[in-house]
């Protein structure tokens, strides 16, 4: 117990917790986007898949509990480390010229905040049906998607949020592997291929759906 506390209190311990929880969430997203793409195979395919997920019962709640724990740990560690980073340089530079840091890295705290807001609204919209821009049905997921995304500002919010998510994964997935020490040492450590593929897949997969609804491809 003592060791766990020391680990959590250390910066590297917190980073490893962030990396592991982040990778759990990336794993979830890959599954989530793959399932969602069934929308392109019509209402039956998607609604059967949804019924299958709802039928999982205990396992569904188990998965949700893990995700909730991951989100919580990820955010608590992120906030604490961001606070530490701010405190670590009380007097800033008059002129600072970043050389290699990517846009994704520089905006990762902001994209994280936007994703949190998005997830909250997204769950209220499609999971609980608390926010109902159009009439919500627990069983007809396909109709919820088409109805929801026909409203341009709903789609716009999803599309913008997915850009943040893509950038977050582009930096986060790559650095998570490095934080837990799972990458191979290489001549150009800043190069990332797996993270790029995952980020593009998740971003494109999720973005295609509102775009397809707006264009009338999915109706």
């Amino acid at each position: 117990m003592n060791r766990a506390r020391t680990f959590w209190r250390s910066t590297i311990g917190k980073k490893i917790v962030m990396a592991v929880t982040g990778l759990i969430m990336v794993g979830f997203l890959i599954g989530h986007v793959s399932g969602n793409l069934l929308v392109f195979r019509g209402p039956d395919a998607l609604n059967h898949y949804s019924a299958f997920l709802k039928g999982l019962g205990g396992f569904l709640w188990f998965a949700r509990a893990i995700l909730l724990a991951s989100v919580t740990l990820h955010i608590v560690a992120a906030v604490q480390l961001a606070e530490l980073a701010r405190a670590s340089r009380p007097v800033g530079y008059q002129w600072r010229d970043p050389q290699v840091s990517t846009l994704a890295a520089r905006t990762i705290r902001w994209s994280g905040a936007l994703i949190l807001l998005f997830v909250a609204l997204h769950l209220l919209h499609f999971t609980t049906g608390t926010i109902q821009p159009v009439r919500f049905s627990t069983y007809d997921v396909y109709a919820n998607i088409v109805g929801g995304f026909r409203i341009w500002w709903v789609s716009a919010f999803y599309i913008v949020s997915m850009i943040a998510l893509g950038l977050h994964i582009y930096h986060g997935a790559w650095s998570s592997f490095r934080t837990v020490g799972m990458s191979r040492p290489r001549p150009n450590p800043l190069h990332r291929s797996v993270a790029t593929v995952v980020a593009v897949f998740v971003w494109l997969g999720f973005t295609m759906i509102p775009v397809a609804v707006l264009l009338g491809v999915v109706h």
Partner: protein
Amino acid sequence: MNLTLRVWRQAGPKAPGKLVVYEAEDISPDMSFLEMLDVVNESLTVRGKIPIAFDHDCREGICGMCGLMINGVAHGPMKGTATCQLHMRSFKDGDTIYIEPWRARAFPVIRDLTVDRTALDRIIQAGGFITAPTGGAQDANTILVSKHSADSAMDAAACIGCGACVAACPNASASLFTASKITHLGLLPQGQPERYRRALAMVGQMDLESFGACTWFGECQEACPKEISIDTIMRMNRDYLNATTRQA
């Protein structure tokens, strides 16, 4: 060459500081950056003004004493060199150059451009050493080290402790510095006895010194005059994780 300098002047650790403008005239492109500052300081001294304080020692890129933030880049625009090995030919006649000290809570300003980097010494004291056998010297090749390990260890051992990694890091993290020593000793047989204790002790001290955490921006690797790779940070994290999960 004639240059305009905007230099951070600060009389002492608690004194307020500000950028002061100086004209550096008749500078040869073959001068090093520090020689250019020497010329400016001579003219300040002649005019009865207080010269600009900056750290330097060997002036051949191996001691780690010098270190300036030049136009927002640690050690200036030349990659893989310390400030002393940067030459004025890297600038153009008429340029304005911003010169600031390393900025970190763990590196308080002593005066002008000099900062207190003893936090790095304390990290080394916490575990950056090996148990050295005493007595008669061993035969040179009794302990075998693979070429690969020797090369990688040597790359990490090249760290001169200048603190550019901290200065360049958006989080003012000392990860690259600490990881270099952990990697250097962790790759060699002589470093094995204390390997995991070292990871715990050095990382613990690094955190105590109020450096930030690594977020993999990669700026440290770019600023490092010895071009040490951020792969070393991966090794440090792995050793730290192993140290935590191992039986005591």
